[in-house]
């Protein structure tokens, strides 16, 4: 792999840009691998990269049904933060945030991580109490989060309407300054390039149709649209389709898949300095480096794999955006899309061993998986290599639904993840 640098740009400028090589190779699958990862999103590609980099396991294939960045990795609103309430969540999201901070250098790929701050608006007494509890919990745990008065919030985001006559009055806000955004498809591409460089096979347009198991119950490989591929270990990280893949090995998960929608506006000059989320009225918004407003809407209430979602969901969000930021009322929306999220009953992820030998699962990231990408991938690689979870992910096991040790971020966060 040729490293990207300012010298590479200069060299290619002299040569008419003819020396750029493909970012990753697209090999035909081998007969068998040490590890097969099902799902070529950020989490899966990242796990392959860390397997190769930190655990010396390079005989790895990432099998992806579509194309890289075509699933939820390329369908989210790119928000990064770690201001969760419970220790288990703070552990993994803070681990992830620390990896985000050095990810571009680590991968030699600009993922455009931008710590521009994530602000969560409080509209009522309940919000205020809840967010201040989060702020205190975070600070006690060594994670930055601070409480702002309405005027301080307005100073940080000048376009915010904090007037007393506002439809959704603001009585304060929580701000995590290290939170921010990153370019989502660059994350998939960067991990694919770095993993491919270390010998990992990235196999696109290859659908997993079955999981084959030996007489002792352990997995032996996957049936795919390119034929059978053997594997000593299989790791499933297929976001919305985790239930479908795991059903092939007769493992039932506590998941339901629902569409989550997002939309972007026409590009504008820089106007919006950070990410603003409002849990109570359900809106979150930031501005991409291209200038588009990136707006996240809610999930539909019913199970679906349709990747669309109802119109009333996005109009509800836009109603709230227009009230909070009156200057955006005449902005045109350009694109809208949906991704299928897999949600657990306690709204915390599952990462761990399964009842099937040598089959591992990384699922249930629900509506907040993007921010977890590097941390989740890093800990998932540890799980696959060692066969037991890393201590930072020890609480995320599948058996918590049997033991009752839930991590109830659903109750803690109400809505936005």
């Amino acid at each position, binding site marked *: 792999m040729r490293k990207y640098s300012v010298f590479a740009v200069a060299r290619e400028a002299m040569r008419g840009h003819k020396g750029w090589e493909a970012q990753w190779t697209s090999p035909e699958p081998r007969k068998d691998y040490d590890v097969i990862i099902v799902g070529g999103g950020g989490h899966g590609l990242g796990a392959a990269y860390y397997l190769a980099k930190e655990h010396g396991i390079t005989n790895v294939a990432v099998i992806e049904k*579509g*194309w*890289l960045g*075509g699933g939820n990795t390329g369908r989210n609103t790119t928000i990064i933060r770690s201001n969760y309430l419970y220790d288990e969540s703070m552990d993994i999201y803070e681990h992830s945030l620390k990896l985000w901070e050095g990810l571009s250098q680590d991968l030699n790929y600009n993922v455009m991580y931008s710590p521009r701050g994530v602000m969560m608006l409080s509209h009522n007494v309940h919000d205020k109490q809840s967010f201040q509890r989060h702020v205190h919990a975070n600070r006690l745990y060594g994670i930055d989060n601070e409480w702002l008065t309405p005027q301080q919030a307005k100073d940080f985001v000048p376009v915010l309407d904090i007037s007393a006559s506002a439809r959704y009055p603001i009585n304060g806000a929580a701000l995590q300054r290290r939170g921010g955004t990153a370019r989502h498809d660059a994350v998939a591409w960067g991990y694919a390039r770095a993993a491919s460089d270390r010998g990992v096979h990235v196999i*696109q*347009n290859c659908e997993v149709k079955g999981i084959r198991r030996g007489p002792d119950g352990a997995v032996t490989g996957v049936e795919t649209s390119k034929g059978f591929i053997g594997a000593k270990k299989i790791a499933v990280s297929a976001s919305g*389709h985790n*239930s*479908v893949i795991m*059903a092939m090995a007769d493992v*039932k*998960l*506590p*998941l*339901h*898949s629902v569409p989550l929608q997002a939309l972007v506006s026409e590009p504008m000059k820089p106007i919006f300095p950070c990410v603003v989320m409002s849990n109570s009225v359900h809106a979150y918004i930031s501005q991409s480096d291209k200038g588009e407003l990136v707006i996240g809407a809610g999930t539909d*209430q*019913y*199970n*679906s*794999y*349709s*990747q*669309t979602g*109802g*119109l*009333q969901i996005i109009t509800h969000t836009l109603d709230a955006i227009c009230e909070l930021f009156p200057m955006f009322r005449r902005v045109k929306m350009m694109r809208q*899309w949906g991704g299928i999220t*897999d949600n657990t*009953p306690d709204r915390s992820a599952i990462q761990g061993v399964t009842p099937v030998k040598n089959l591992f699962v990384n699922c249930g990231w629900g509506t907040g998986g993007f921010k977890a990408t590097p941390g989740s991938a890093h800990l998932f690689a540890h799980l696959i290599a060692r066969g037991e979870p890393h201590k930072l992910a020890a609480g995320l096991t599948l058996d918590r*639904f*049997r*033991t*009752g040790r839930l991590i109830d971020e659903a109750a803690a966060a109400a809505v936005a993840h």
Partner: protein
Amino acid sequence: MLLIYCPYCEEERSELEFRHGGDAHIARPANIADITDEEFQDYFFLRDNPKGLIFERWRHIHGCGRFFNAARDTVSDKFVMSYKAGEPKPNLSGEPTATEKTVETYEAVEGIAK
């Protein structure tokens, strides 16, 4: 937005009038205090989450207020039928289910990566 047929009102109404109630035909064990943790997990948390035909509960909360069941395809979001609570689970094994080939998905429109 879905149009949902309420079997009590005998009318198709907008989704805004309804609240989704999770999977249908999940019976609470009569001996709930005696079952093992595994059995409780199976009853309370584990779900099929099918891609295709699903049986689910809906409540016509802004209408008649009653619960009923429905069979729907989770790929096309089309309702196969809805029926009153307490009625047995219909056998719809002969129904063709939607696939990505019969539904206009993003993949179908954009084509696969080359």
